[in-house]
Structure formats: structure tokens, C-alpha cells
């Protein structure tokens, strides 16, 4: 007989590993990826591939030569960072910018803080914000989506958010909500397909990789808040406006895939809801009154920074705290 193994209890495990969580998120992103290829063609594929390869390469180089430890590419975190970074970029972006974004995401966003588990900010988000500030021209030139087969229109179209920001009531009323749902609208190529993103959300919930708290609280907050500020323009308009706020821009991608990043989001249910509500409020404030048309990235980024504070003060409900009854 072999030597017996001894360890403290428990002697069994749920079987869900870090890598499985990460690959689960990647699987959840497949519908979005397909939609983006359908509307933005080969460009979307190229940007994604470049971002993933660059992230993997930088992670490997930094771990192997700077930190001098065994590279952990297999856990899927670098791939996920690459995919999320790419999905937050316009399809027409030059590929060298994507590489710079990947270097910043992995090098500064993740490794500088001590690698997986120690980063304060979502690495993909850090990369995107870095690019947005450094290359505002390229980062806000959105190609018009064109279904597969049709020649890709070089003319850059306004995103739904641009229209919303301009606040022309007639223009807003003309936006086709269906197009924003399926992804036939301008924007970063991973954020346009609302339905595909929601399919991914359902998959993540089913696999129990994330809980509903963060996405639902963000979406509800954004809806209610933007509804409340436009209600004076009429009920019907307010509903459309609030709906468009949710389905346009990076809101769903951010709420479902970026804000729920394990490392940078709060640990307790209450903390998650508070985090979600604050992200929602900051997003709408930036979108309506800020300088940028899109506020989701900044909102998540700011709340990433507040997460340690939320973790410190929001404690889980303890057993025995409930008021006795019966």
C-alpha cells in the first residue's frame, strides 16, 4: 500500500478551481464575441487575438524574468484580462495601441500590485482607461457596425451615448432599441450586444461563478436614477431614456463582467449591493453631467478603489445576530 495521506479536514472539495471560474467567464463571453464578429468582422477577431496574446506574453515575461517564479498562465486570468480589454476597445483601433493597453493592464494594473489577488483595480479596466486618456482620438472613433458580408463602413458613426448626451429629444426618440439589443450600434465591439451579454450573465449565475448582487444593483440603480432625472420630460420619454442608458455603452459589459471581477469587488452581499449602487450613481452622473459620454469604466475604477473600505466596514450577517422570535 502507498503511504497514507494525512491532512486536516475537510477531505473533499467542491471541485471548482480558480482556472475553472476564469474559463467559465470566458465561456460566458462567447455569445458576445460571436455577435461582435458578426457586426465588426475580422477587426474584432484581430483586436481580441492581439490583446490575448499580448497579455499572455507580458504575464509570462514578467513572472519569469522580473519576479523569477513559475509562470501561471494556465489559470486563465491573463486570457480573461486580454479578452475584457479587447471588448472595451473600438474594432478599428490600431493593433499597436492594443499591445500598449495589454502591457499597462498586466504590468501596471496587475503585476505591480503583486500579481493575481493583490491588484486593487481591475487590470483590463486599468488598461482601457490608460488608453482612453492616452489615445482619446483612436479610442473614441467608432466604426459603424455592418452585418457580416456587407463591406465595413469606414465612416465613424455616433454612439447611442453620444446621442443621449446631446439630449435632443427627437433624436433620442428615433433610436431603435432593438438595434442596441442585438448589437447593431456603434461602440466598443464587446459592449454592443445586450442580449448576448445577458445570455452570458445567465450562464454565470447558473454555474454559480458570480452572484446576482453586483450586476442587478448596478442596472437597477442606473435605470431608476436616469428615469428620475428625466421624468420631467414625460413618462414615456423617461422610460426610453432609462432603457437606452442600460442597453448602450459599456454598462452591461461592465456590470456583468468587469464590476464582478472577484479580486476588485467587495466580499459581502451587503457590500456588493452598496458597490453596485454607487457604481450606478457615478456612471449616470458622469454620463449626464461629466465631460465624457461614457462613465462606466470610471465608475467601476473609482469603486475598485473604495472596495477595501467597503470590505472593512460591511461585515456579513453573523449567525445569532437575528432577533430571537417564536
Amino acid at each position, binding site marked *: 500500500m502507498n*503511504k*497514507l*495521506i*494525512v*491532512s*486536516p479536514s475537510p477531505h473533499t472539495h467542491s471541485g471548482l478551481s480558480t482556472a475553472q471560474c476564469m474559463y467559465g467567464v470566458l465561456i460566458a463571453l462567447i455569445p458576445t464575441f460571436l455577435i461582435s464578429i458578426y457586426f465588426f468582422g475580422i477587426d474584432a477577431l484581430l483586436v481580441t487575438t492581439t490583446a490575448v496574446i499580448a497579455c499572455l506574453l507580458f504575464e509570462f515575461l514578467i513572472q519569469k524574468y522580473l519576479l523569477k517564479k513559475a509562470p501561471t498562465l494556465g489559470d486563465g486570468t491573463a486570457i480573461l484580462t486580454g479578452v475584457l480589454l479587447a471588448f472595451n476597445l473600438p474594432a478599428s483601433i490600431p493593433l499597436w495601441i492594443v499591445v500598449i493597453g495589454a502591457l499597462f493592464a498586466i504590468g501596471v494594473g496587475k503585476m505591480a500590485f503583486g500579481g493575481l489577488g493583490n491588484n486593487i483595480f481591475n487590470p483590463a479596466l486599468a488598461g482601457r482607461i490608460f488608453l482612453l486618456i492616452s489615445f482619446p482620438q483612436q479610442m473614441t472613433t467608432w466604426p459603424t457596425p455592418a452585418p457580416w458580408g456587407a463591406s465595413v463602413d469606414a465612416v465613424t458613426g455616433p454612439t447611442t451615448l453620444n446621442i443621449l448626451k446631446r439630449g435632443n429629444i427627437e433624436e433620442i426618440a428615433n433610436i431603435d432599441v432593438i438595434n442596441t439589443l442585438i448589437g447593431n450600434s456603434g461602440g466598443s465591439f464587446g459592449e454592443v450586444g445586450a442580449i448576448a451579454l445577458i445570455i452570458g450573465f445567465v450562464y454565470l449565475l447558473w454555474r454559480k461563478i458570480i452572484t446576482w448582487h453586483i450586476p442587478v444593483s448596478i442596472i437597477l440603480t442606473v435605470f431608476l436614477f436616469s428615469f428620475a432625472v428625466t421624468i420631467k420630460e414625460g413618462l414615456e420619454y423617461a422610460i426610453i431614456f432609462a432603457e437606452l442608458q442600460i442597453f448602450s455603452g459599456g454598462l452591461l459589459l461592465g456590470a456583468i463582467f468587469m464590476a464582478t471581477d472577484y479580486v476588485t469587488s467587495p466580499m459581502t452581499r451587503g457590500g456588493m449591493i452598496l458597490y453596485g449602487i454607487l457604481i450606478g450613481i457615478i456612471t449616470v452622473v458622469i454620463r449626464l453631467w461629466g465631460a465624457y459620454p461614457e462613465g462606466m469604466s470610471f465608475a467601476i475604477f473609482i469603486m475598485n478603489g473604495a472596495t477595501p473600505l467597503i470590505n472593512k466596514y460591511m461585515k456579513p450577517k453573523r449567525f445569532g445576530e437575528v432577533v430571537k422570535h417564536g
Partner: protein
Amino acid sequence: MNIITISIISLATIGAIAALILYVIAQRFKVDEDPRIDEVEKALPGANCGGCGKAGCRSFAESCVKASSLEGMLCPVGGNKVMQQIATILGKEAHEAESRVAVVRCNGSCQHRPQTNTYEGAHNCAITHNLYAGNTGCAYGCLGCGDCVSVCSLGAISIDPETHLPVVNIDICGGCGACSRVCPRNIIEIRKKGPKGRGVYVACMNKEKGGVARKACEVACIGCSKCAKECKFEAITIANNLSYIDSDKCKMCRKCVDACPTGAILAVNFPPRKVVEPATPSTETTPSDNK
């Protein structure tokens, strides 16, 4: 040109005002401290190990300055040399204290003590000790997870990759006792450091009866008391099937080492013996040799 001048002047003014404010505040809230505390602290090794019984080096320096005499005060890391320096700084009399060193009282390397099972829990001696007797047959021996290594602020202990036992670097170890306190099996003892680091000790803590102890480990002390009979200085006592050599009484004649049937008694840092000469307590005759 004008802009540059204005910027320089305004920056300089801001700087001057800030400096003034800082100076005033620093003067206002100045804490009067004996400058000798800083000097003493500088002389200390700065390991903050707590071996002296104080919270850290600074607090030791404070109590040195306050104390009327340095008697009983010892920085175990710096030893007499540092205490001498402190005495000079403070103009007090230095008191010689014998230097001490950590000694690992287990010699159950993989070779001597076969592994009987595999441990897969958290890599921590205290956790292993609370869980079970360990991955060998010996319930008293070293667990090899290195709690002593991580607690040592001087980096004086390391785990030998071959024997899986801790090794104390006697040149660095100050005998502060942190490792001894953290070891869940009390294997590490703080003993008197002999000349040139020499020492004779029983490298075993197994309190089982001879047979059981020997079954678990080839080099276990079986409590046969042969060493005690051999010792002329009454330095050896036997209790709970285990021999113990009092480092204060031991004259390092090494007779017990030869008498031990299992090789549980170790003599360390002695020069290799000459084959012809009978073992004599040689101290000054041979050149220094630390291994």
C-alpha cells in the same frame, strides 16, 4: 522672461512660507528625548527580535538609558560586544553575560527517521502538531515545516533541503529564543554558547520508552543512562526516558558522545579528532574550525 521670474518668485515664497510653518510646528510639538537613546539604538543590531524581553530595539535602548545599572540587560543578538558599546555610550559599567545560541534537539533526518505517511495540510508546524503525530513514527521530533525559520528575524535558521531539519547558523544566531518559543514541540533549546560555538547536547526529545523511540528513529535517545554514568561532572540527568545535558555543567569532554549506543548525543563545532590521541577537552590548542 517675465513669466519665468514670476514663477520663480512665487514658488520660492511658497517654499519659504511652508518651511517657516514646518519649523514653527516642529519646535512647538518637539518631544524632549534623551539623545543617548538614539545613540544606543544605533549601536543595537536592529533586529527587533524581542529576545531581550522588550518590545523592540528602541524600547530596549530606552530602558538601557533609564536603568541605573546595565546588570541583567543583554541584547542577545549583539552580545557582550554591543553591551560594551552601550556601556561606553552611557558611561555605565558593562556586565559580562554569557552568549547563548539556539540548538535544534532533533537529529531525525529522513535517513534516520523514515517517513510513514504524507502530510498535505497547511505548511505550518503548529497546525501539523495539533493535527497529529507527524509524518514519521516519532511524535516528539521535528515536523520540518519551518515555523522557526519564519519567526527568526535574523535569518539565522534555515531548513536543510536534504535532512528537512532546521540548521542554526551560530555566527548569526543571537539566542533570542523566538524560535524556541514558536516550536510546538519545544525542540529548540537556548543553550550556553561554548567557545568557538562548541557544544555537546542530546539531539532528541522523544519521551517514549526505548523500544518505541528506537523503532521510530535510529538516532533516538532511549534513556539507557549510559551517558549519565559516564559523565564525571553530573551534567547529565535522565527523566522520562530522555537524557538531558546541562550546558552550564558540561565541560565538553565528549565521553558521553562515545558512550551513547544510538548516537543521539551530538558534539558540534569541534575540530576533527586526531586518531592517536585520547579525547581531551582541547580548547586553545587547535586552530579555529567552525564546521
